[in-house]
């Protein structure tokens, strides 16, 4: 990447930025050839780089598609066993954080109250000098601390070396992961003596019980879990999913049963379930020998409110026969004794049922850089408050912004004389720092990562840095050099990380002798070795410790903090995640508080009313949203909501009052499908068997004119509603691939979101009598590419028509914007450009050069990613062969973690999509209007019987 300087990108950016698709620019264009052409970069052709996603801890492998030196799209790396080629919504959105307009463009230093730009040399010199001053005679900086996010790789290693070289104090470096599953770690420590998280293999699970763990969307390693679980689900013996908790998350929406309990009662359910299982009277076979001991330690029985012994027995019976199973929990933000106890109960049940080592694997989570316990973080702040912390290094850690207000982080941090902060975008904490040192984005930096045992991921830059940033580890190495720190020899972080990953790779049995072999590893970006789950003995002495803890939830409303797939509520999240509405509630661009219909009625609250929430920790105001899938004892707030900090952790008692004010909530999507049976469910027993006519039934539906020919291909798709989790990864992928503009909250309120593909959620069988019966159906809705498309004949200028390959084409530059097509589309999938799109510099660098940027006044819609079809066809033509099945994948299909979407050529009898469309569950949307769509939906199956 020698020839490519920052200017080079900006140049190309400005060229692309000028892309006003539908009206050619009249000014004569200038051509600026490169001085030296960068090798292997061909303008107009994509380059692919392998690296790793740092969006969350899961560490999915990523393929970054780059055009003219700018990354335009992220996709999962097929070689990666974790992501398995898929990527979640947040992974997709990493791209927008790379091009975030408010990213730091260079280092800043405090000047009075301001943070002002400063050259790197000066910044380093000043930090060095200040550290020098703080250094005692022993060469140590007593009271130097470091707070960093989890860095299981070279970065972490450098930080540790740096800190330990500067201070003798143990635990001087604290790993700050506010979203970490602390309870699960704590429970594992108690029961099995190791602070670790399990790795799940749900493909073998025949029953899954989740105690509020949003495992298909946000919990632990969601992409992997969605894939494995849905793989199992599509099998003959469909595993049952039971959801235990006060609120259906999107994972809960996929459950077959819902044990609807008061917040906090999950623990009680877990204990009663455990009791039932270990009770000899129920004769559960093949239990762990410790069962008797556990039974002895169990507290006296107390049925949780609203749960009958029969339900427990039913669930217990199911688990006793459906082996192996997997019990998951608790939710991410469940903290305190209750959470840990629940986690322990869950793990204990897994142990008793022998799930450990089969579906719930211990001993695989990376031992490197495990997140510190909550106490350590609070301890650090306490030290600071006492003024014992002299210098604090922060690496992508924002205690001020992420910890509850009760932690009084600000007060503590203000006491610290020297704060050096590393990160990309100024956060709350950075605003208190003396030095804010701009770090590379993950896609700009080298590094290595061991997300779990047996897997080594290489972090490799997919483009050269956009701004004047530096890798934080490099900065630390430079500082070490200036301070002549003992024991730190490396000068260059790239070299260091290289030697480290090569060593690690060798350990994993990778073959690295020749440069060629090395290049192969780098090209794959990942090394997978063998790692076996460890069998862990149960520490019986731990039983009384947690079975003793009793939590009795109060009777009033309780706070439930839940994780959302997207981040509508997070003001720091990239535009895509804020704009795409939360699948369950339909809210975008705002945080909110959910009430059950019953509670809302009791308080006389309507959606959009501003509520005053008060806990013993503090108070805040949030707009109300009515959620039929919520227990009346709960008030649910998304964990990304900044307002949550004031209220404190989960399980707090909340007082809710109306403020009388209303808030214009950007809320989209009607709650019910009004009995129109769009998202269908087939009860398991009635499930029709494979019949090969069914797929074509609709084509026999009478048409006046003979169906037209598709000479070569007829592109088609199938969507399995039994697999779709509603995670919206496809939606964000579509935004990224097709240059969809982010239009903001007002447009959302006006109903003018630009999404081509939407997850249509509907609450079913809502009755105040039986709220536990509430079910959620999701229906991915995109252009159906009909054979007899109603939108086509009404266009006066042929701007939309049926291509020979069966696509419903939209020619933007021919469209004059009558909007008749949109009116006449029975599926409402056509999107109109109400205004010219705005891509704030440098976001326009993300635009896909293969897709027109649409101007105001034209209609647009899903194209089945025709540009990707053309690309695949081009590749095939180049190799002188036909396009293979599965070679063409629209962005949505490519990124679907659950692999619910299948795309292919309906004229190829071997194609997967054909067999899918002929499945017994296949049906077309709105068959009565006889539009002969190219998309077949596979009805969701009712739960299997135990």
């Amino acid at each position: 990447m020698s020839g490519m300087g920052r200017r080079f990108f900006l140049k190309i950016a400005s060229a692309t930025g000028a892309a006003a698709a539908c009206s050619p620019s009249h000014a004569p264009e200038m051509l600026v050839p490169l001085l030296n052409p960068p090798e292997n970069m061909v303008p107009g052709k994509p380059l692919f780089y392998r690296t790793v996603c740092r969006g969350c801890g899961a560490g999915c492998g990523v393929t970054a598609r780059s055009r003219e030196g700018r990354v335009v799209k992220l996709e999962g790396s097929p070689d990666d066993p974790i992501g398995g080629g898929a990527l979640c919504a947040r992974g997709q959105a990493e791209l927008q954080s790379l091009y975030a307009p408010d990213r730091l463009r260079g280092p800043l230093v405090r000047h009075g109250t301001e943070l002002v730009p400063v050259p790197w040399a000066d910044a380093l010199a000043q930090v060095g000098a200040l550290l020098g001053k703080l250094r005692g005679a022993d060469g140590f900086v007593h009271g130097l601390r470091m707070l960093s996010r989890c860095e299981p790789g070279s970065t972490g290693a450098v930080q540790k070396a740096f800190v330990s070289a500067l201070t003798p104090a143990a635990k001087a470096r604290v790993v700050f992961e506010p979203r970490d599953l602390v309870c699960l770690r704590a429970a594992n420590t108690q029961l099995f003596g190791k602070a670790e998280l399990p790795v799940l293999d749900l493909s073998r699970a025949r029953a899954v019980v989740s105690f509020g763990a949003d495992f298909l969307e946000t919990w632990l390693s969601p992409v992997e879990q969605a894939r494995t679980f849905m793989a199992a689900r599509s099998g003959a013996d469909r595993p049952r999913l039971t959801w235990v908790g006060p609120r259906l998350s999107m994972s809960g929406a996929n459950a077959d049963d819902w044990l609807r309990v008061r917040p906090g009662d999950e623990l009680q359910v877990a204990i009663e379930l455990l009791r039932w299982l270990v009770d000899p009277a129920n004769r559960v076979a093949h239990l762990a020998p410790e069962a008797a001991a556990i039974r002895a330690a169990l507290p006296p029985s107390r049925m949780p409110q609203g749960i009958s012994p029969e339900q427990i027995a039913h669930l217990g019976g199911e688990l006793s026969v459906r082996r192996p199973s997997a019990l998951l929990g608790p939710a991410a933000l469940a903290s305190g004794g209750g959470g840990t106890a629940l986690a322990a109960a869950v793990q204990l049940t897994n142990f008793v049922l022998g799930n450990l080592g089969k579906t719930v694997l211990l001993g695989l989570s990376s031992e490197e850089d495990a997140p510190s316990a909550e106490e350590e973080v609070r301890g650090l702040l306490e030290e600071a408050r006492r003024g014992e912390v002299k210098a604090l290094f922060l690496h992508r850690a924002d205690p001020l912004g992420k910890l509850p207000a009760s932690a009084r982080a600000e007060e503590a941090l203000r006491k610290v004389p020297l704060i050096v902060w590393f990160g990309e975008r100024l956060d709350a904490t950075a605003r208190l720092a003396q030095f804010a040192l701009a770090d590379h984005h993950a896609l700009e930096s080298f590094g290595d990562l061991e997300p779990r045992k047996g897997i080594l991921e290489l972090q490799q830059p997919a483009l050269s840095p956009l701004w004047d940033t530096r890798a934080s580890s490099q900065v630390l190495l430079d500082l070490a050099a200036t301070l002549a720190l003992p024991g730190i020899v490396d000068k260059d972080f790239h070299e260091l990380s290289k030697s480290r990953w090569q060593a690690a790779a060798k350990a994993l049995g990778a073959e690295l002798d020749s440069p060629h072999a090395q290049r192969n590893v780098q090209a794959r970006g990942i090394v997978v070795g063998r790692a076996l789950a460890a069998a862990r003995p149960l520490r019986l002495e731990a039983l009384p410790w947690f079975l003793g803890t009793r939590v009795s939830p109060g009777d009033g409303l309780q706070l439930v903090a839940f994780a959302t797939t997207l981040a509508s509520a997070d003001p720091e999240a990239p535009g895509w995640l804020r704009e795409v509405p939360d699948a369950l509630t339909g809210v975008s661009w705002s945080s909110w508080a959910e009430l059950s219909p019953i509670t809302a009625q009791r308080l006389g609250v309507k959606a959009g009313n501003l509520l005053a929430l008060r806990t013993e920790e503090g108070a805040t105001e949030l707009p109300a949203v009515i959620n039929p899938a919520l227990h009346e004892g709960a008030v649910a707030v998304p964990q990304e909501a900044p307002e949550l900090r004031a209220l404190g952790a989960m399980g707090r008692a909340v007082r809710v009052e109306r403020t009388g004010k209303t808030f214009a909530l950007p809320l989209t999507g009607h709650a019910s499908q009004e009995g129109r049976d769009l998202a269908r469910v087939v009860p398991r027993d009635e499930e029709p068997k494979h019949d090969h006519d069914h797929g074509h039934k609709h084509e026999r539906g009478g048409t006046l004119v003979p169906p037209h020919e598709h000479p070569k291909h007829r592109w088609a798709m199938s969507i399995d509603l039994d697999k779709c989790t509603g995670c919206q990864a496809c939606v964000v992928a579509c935004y990224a691939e097709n240059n969809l503009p982010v239009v903001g909250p007002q447009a959302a309120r006006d109903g003018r979101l630009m999404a081509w593909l939407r997850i249509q959620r509907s609450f079913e069988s809502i009755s105040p009598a039986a709220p536990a019966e509430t079910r959620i159906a999701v229906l991915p809705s995109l252009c159906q590419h009909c054979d007899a498309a109603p939108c086509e004949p009404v266009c006066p200028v042929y701007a939309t028509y049926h291509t020979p390959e069966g696509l419903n084409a939209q020619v933007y530059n021919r469209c004059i914007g009558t909007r008749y097509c949109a009116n006449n589309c029975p599926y409402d999938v056509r999107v109109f450009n109400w205004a010219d799109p705005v891509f704030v510099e440098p976001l326009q660098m993300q635009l896909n050069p293969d897709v027109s940027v649409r101007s105001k006044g034209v209609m647009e819609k899903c194209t089945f990613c025709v540009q990707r079809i053309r690309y695949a066809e081009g590749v095939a033509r180049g190799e002188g062969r036909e396009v293979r099945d599965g070679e063409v994948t629209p962005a949505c299909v490519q990124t679907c973690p659950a692999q619910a979407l299948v795309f292919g050529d309906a004229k190829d009898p071997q194609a997967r999509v054909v067999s899918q469309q002929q499945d017994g569950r296949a049906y077309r949307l709105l068959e009565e209007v006889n539009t002969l769509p190219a998309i077949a939906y596979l009805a969701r199956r009712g739960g299997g019987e135990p």
Partner: protein
Amino acid sequence: MRRLAPLALFLGALGCQAAASPTTAEAPVKFSHKTHAGENQIGCGVCHPYARHSPNAGLAPASVCIGCHKFVSKEKPDVQKLAAEFTAGRPLTWTRLNRVPDHVFFSHERHLAIGVDCKACHGDVASMAMDQKVHELQMGFCMDCHREKQATIDCLACHK
């Protein structure tokens, strides 16, 4: 229908299909295709390296020019200017002569692959001392050829 070409052109212009672009380009240095492609028989691919395997033809990087002009006709003032700019690390800026609107996805690769001659669209550059635009690269121009050669006239072939 085509007999009404003047009217068509007028309305075409109204429809702003004709981007008002220059018909001859003033170059930063006096570059002559006549000398290079004509007299010295340098193939197009030498200076337009990507044409055969990419949608974009690409334009000679200064390094390529220098590659020859290190030795060839160093005395010419324009060559010296070029060398100066190159050593100063300043790229030359050329005026674009042939362009299609941003909503047109033309691929040099595809057209060269089926043996379309560069002349067909760019005219006989080998005989041009001063570059000039030979064809208004408008949709009609493409359509004529596509119809003639029975190539696809599916809109999505060029518009995405």
